[in-house]
């Protein structure tokens, strides 16, 4: 999306550039070429000089600079906009905008950028595109002005404000004006007004700008700023509690995903499945493979990679689970502790297989665009990937619940786990049901792996990190009870996140473990234990 806007914008600007005189062009070319010779520390000044020309042709040059696509020809010091094409670079003349052919990489040298250059580019671009005819470009411009406020830009902002019609952009411009005004040399009265505006809008950026202004503010302004700071901090503190709940929910959803497959294989079937984590890992590697294929063959489908990976992961890990059940576990029913040993052995084999096939290092699994970034909800920062993972975890849970409670397959599964002999004598093919149940649990673990690949390492060790937590969740919630797993996961998640700010990440985790141990003393069969006369033999 952004790319499209950008190219439209460039085209528009190039059209607008046609009538400008040739002499200006020469000056511009010199300025651009100067970038190629400048040292890193001098680039900032050149950018400022370029921005001062106000020439719209500067925009693509600066953008290319910021993205590291500006190269100087070694032979004559000419600077070009470039685009990768194989081992060559396609050159575009920065002033005329015309193609300048291709050149091998070795004949060009990159115009170096670092963070401060990128910052300067952002500031310059911000004030240059404030008057752009494209609404989204203006919005982006205001945002970058807000991110790196600069007193020099105040004039440009006020000009833009005068011309702006769009409500949202206007509101942001107002805030940008207030932000820049505070650090400018305008009279105190105007500043007071700006402080008031910032106080109303609140937010982290306001906090940042106000506290930096506090040092240089004069005596009459100081109390205003301090009051504003106090009020913003207060609301921030309130939001922080909400943020904690969100983090807790998010951690809980990760725990739920990791544990839900185990709730089937361990909770329902009673198999102490130490290879559960490896099923999660296999799911994550499936995602990696899917993305790898898409990246090389169908790059356009990349955003669909997770949707494609989900059923595949289910099938892959379900099949592995099926093979495990038929090959090993079915001989061990009624000996739960021995399943622990066998599955531990299997987990070692699976880990080492993955290590041999894919190598021991992390594999890159990208976030599709709809899972990248964050949005603000009031004072909450909500990242898309976490949000989708919560949604996904709940969907998996609901689906599983439906499968178990409402379908004939689920009925058979429950029948077999409750009374194998009775079920068998009623004509249910118990071995088949066992195998399918185990495959289902494994398949769900694989789907969890697809989601977890979005936030964690994809490495052979992935599963190890989740296995203990998963067992804790299932046991804490109550073995054999899906709702217990749900409540267990979310309460452990939230508890952990509320302890973390006070006790730190490590102590917080220790405390949670100790609380689980104590809780089991109170309720030896977990949160949602099945009560009843359950006569012991």
């Amino acid at each position, binding site marked *: 999306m952004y790319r499209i806007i950008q190219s439209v914008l460039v085209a528009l600007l190039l059209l607008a550039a046609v009538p400008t005189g040739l002499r200006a062009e020469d000056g511009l070319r010199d300025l651009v070429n100067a970038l190629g010779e400048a040292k*890193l*520390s001098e680039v900032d000044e050149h950018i400022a000089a370029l921005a001062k020309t106000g020439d719209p042709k500067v925009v693509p040059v600066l953008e290319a600079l910021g993205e*590291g696509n500006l190269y100087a020809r070694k032979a004559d010091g000419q600077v070009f906009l470039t685009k990768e094409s194989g081992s060559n670079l396609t050159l575009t003349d920065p002033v005329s905008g015309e193609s300048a052919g291709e050149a091998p990489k070795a004949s060009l040298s990159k115009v*170096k950028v*670092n*963070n401060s250059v*990128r*910052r300067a580019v952002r500031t310059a671009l911000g004030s240059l595109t404030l008057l752009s005819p494209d609404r989204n470009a203006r919005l982006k411009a205001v945002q970058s002005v807000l*991110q*790196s406020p600069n007193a020099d830009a105040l004039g440009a902002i006020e000009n833009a404000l005068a011309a702006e019609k769009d409500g949202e952009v206007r509101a942001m411009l107002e805030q940008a004006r207030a932000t820049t005004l505070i650090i400018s040399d305008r009279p105190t009265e105007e500043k007071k007004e700006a402080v008031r505006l910032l106080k109303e809008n609140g937010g*982290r950026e306001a*906090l*940042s*700008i*106000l*506290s*930096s*202004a*506090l*040092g240089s503010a004069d005596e009459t302004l100081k109390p205003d700023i301090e009051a504003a700071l106090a009020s913003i901090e207060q609301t*921030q503190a309130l939001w922080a509690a909400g*943020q*904690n709940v969100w*983090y807790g929910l*998010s*951690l809980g959803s990760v725990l739920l995903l990791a544990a839900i497959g185990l709730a089937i294989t361990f909770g329902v079937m009673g198999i102490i499945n130490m290879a559960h984590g490896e099923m999660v890992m296999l799911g994550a590697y499936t995602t990696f493979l899917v993305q790898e294929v898409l990246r090389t063959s169908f790059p356009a489908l990349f955003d669909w990679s997770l949707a494609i990976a989900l059923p595949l992961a289910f099938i892959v890990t379900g099949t592995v689970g099926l093979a495990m059940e038929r090959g090993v576990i079915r001989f061990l029913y009624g000996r739960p502790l021995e399943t622990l040993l066998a599955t531990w052995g299997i987990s070692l084999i699976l*880990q*080492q297989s993955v*290590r041999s096939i894919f*190598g*021991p*290092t*992390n*594999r*890159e699994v990208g*976030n599709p665009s709809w899972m*990248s970034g*964050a949005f603000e909800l009031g004072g909450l*920062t909500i*990242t*898309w*990937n*976490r949000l989708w993972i919560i949604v996904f975890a709940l969907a998996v849970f609901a689906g599983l619940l439906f499968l178990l409670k409402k379908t004939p397959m689920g009925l058979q599964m429950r029948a077999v786990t409750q009374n194998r002999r009775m079920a068998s004598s009623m004509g249910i093919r118990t071995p088949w049901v066992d195998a399918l149940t185990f495959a289902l649990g494994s398949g769900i673990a694989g789907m969890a792996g697809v989601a977890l690949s*979005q*936030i*964690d*390492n*994809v*490495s*052979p*060790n992935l599963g*190890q*990190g989740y296995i203990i937590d998963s067992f804790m969740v299932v046991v804490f919630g109550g073995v054999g009870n899906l709702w217990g797993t749900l409540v267990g996961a979310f309460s452990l998640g939230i508890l952990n*996140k509320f302890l*973390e*700010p006070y006790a*730190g*990440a*490590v102590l917080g*985790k220790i405390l949670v473990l100790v609380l689980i141990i104590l809780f089991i003393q109170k309720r030896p069969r977990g949160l949602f234990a099945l009560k009843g006369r359950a006569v012991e033999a």
Partner: protein
Amino acid sequence: MTIRARVTGAFLAAVLSTTAFNGAFAAEDTIKVGILHSLSGTMAISETTLKDAMLMLIEEQNKKGGLLGKKLEAVVVDPASDWPLFAEKARELISVDKVSAVFGCWTSVSRKSVLPVFEELNSILFYPVQYEGEESQRNVFYTGAAPNQQAIPAVDYLMENEEVERWVLAGTDYVYPRTTNKILEAYLIAKGVKPEDIMINYTPFGHSDWQTIVSDIKKFGSAGKKTAVVSTINGDANVPFYKELANQGIKAEDIPVVAFSVGEEELAGLDTGPLVGHLAAWNYFQSVDNPTNAEFIETWKAYTKNDKRVTNDPMEAHYIGFNMWLKAVEKAGTTDTDAVLDAMIGISVPNLSGGYSTMMPNHHITKPVLIGEIQSDGQFETVWETPGLVVGDEWSDYLPDSKDLISDWRAPMSCGNFNVATGKCGGKGS
């Protein structure tokens, strides 16, 4: 009973026969080199590459005719990320396989675990990873960076070029981050940074839920002063950390993160698009442009038959260490430990960043320090470089108890922890 006795007997026989089996090899005329890197367990992720790098170096050397007219032979074992097993395997390499030198270890704890073994059996270890310093041992050569070859230049860079005034020191809770952060804290305070402008945070190994900490960093960074994060977060936890940074929208232009444990290998598991501009400090980057490095990268890609394999700093450290050892053995004319230990000091070999590295009397080497910014292709671009070479400083000048210590393994001092204030050698005779 009889069966039991038979089983035990068979087992003893098995152990002895492997011993004999290994012994048989020693009869052939090769020089053995031990490779002690985890190939399984949590550290396999980092160490396996180093094993491959060593095998490649040894193969290349054999193509050039070996050493002292003999072929080199690599002995690979798997200490499985299990620290006591490191000690056992080190002992096995030295006393059973009779290797002439060992290249190995990654974590500090694995090094600490094998130290007594190398000391007792008098052999040589090359340790290729950046570490916390505070150690200098007669039988160990430290080819990775000491804190002053990585952390301090990085902080200097941020202070001067990015005008950072507020610092988050985030690390995994173990000795390397702890020590490095102690040193940095002392250094920053000496440079006039106020204690309230330093936030220190530790997380457990493999920490994967970074939401709270990243938002704390954001909060800490909104106090109106330029803020930077100095990360000593350990390998595994980095991927979720950077993913969270990217998603919460912390850009390098606003709050740059400089890392000491993130190299090309770690970035290979990440989409670096949103991370452009975050920094790392190393003594080598794959992107360094010079003929030696180009040749090295080419050989590596050919050896691994993988065009996408990356190189990294610890590999370079092994490259330097291995070449130094070759030169020292040639100079000494023997692989005898004492002779090689003497010959090592002062040996100078080309490094991959376009200069020469020299083994100093403190068993640390000279290195350039490079600061690189992450690029969207998973590589680093050098944005700053120390003007000259930096000598590894094993005993930090910024820790009160270690500032008086020096180390010099040349005769007559031959001491790893000489106290200049008391004029005594600390742990000598142990």
